[in-house]
């Protein structure tokens, strides 16, 4: 399966890139498992996420073709 990954704000700067195109075995995994696969590490504290531009959490399933975003806590307004 193929997943398009986006990073925002401090996370984008720390990782040094806007995103990843991930090729993964299998046909489903969770947002948290995807982070571990990409970064070989546990997700950072207070990590926020979205799947297909809707709020998600580490247990939200990710499937082929999905758009996944990881970002720090939001600070708008």
């Amino acid at each position, binding site marked *: 399966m193929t997943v398009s990954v986006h990073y*925002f704000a401090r996370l984008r700067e720390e990782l040094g890139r806007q995103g990843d195109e991930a090729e993964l075995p299998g046909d489903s995994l969770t947002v948290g498992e995807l982070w571990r696969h990409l970064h070989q590490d546990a997700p950072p504290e207070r990590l926020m996420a979205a799947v297909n531009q809707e709020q998600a959490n580490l247990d939200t399933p990710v499937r082929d073709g999905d758009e996944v975003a990881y970002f720090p806590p939001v600070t708008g307004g």
Partner: protein
Amino acid sequence: MAVEILPGDFDPWEIVRQAEQAIPANARGAASVFVGRMRDFNEDEDVTGLFLEHYPGMTERELERIVAEAEARWPLLGCHVAHRVGDVRPGDALVLVATWSAHRIAARDACSDILERLKHEAPFWKRETLADGTDRWVEKNTPGF
């Protein structure tokens, strides 16, 4: 209902004036307006600039969802939300939330609810430039008082 992401400086009062034209004049008993602007200080330090990042697509969807949920909860005649993105200078408007209703409590409570949910749920991030030229990402919202 209207939601706008604006890459340049904007006049929130002009937006309010224009948006109000679309509300039936004899029914709009109450308008509630919040305008947030950039300060030149934060956490006891001088701030000279601000960069506002957003998630194009998701940010608009989140704002539309927040407004739709307010419209389901209060009897609103109209609602307009505008939010600045990009490079911002002190004094520039950052956010506008305007609500219209027949009565004051619906207008006021909906305006307050939309603003608070925007600050906690909509994907925007602030990076401040301090007087010494260094940058820092804002880690959390101010408490609001």
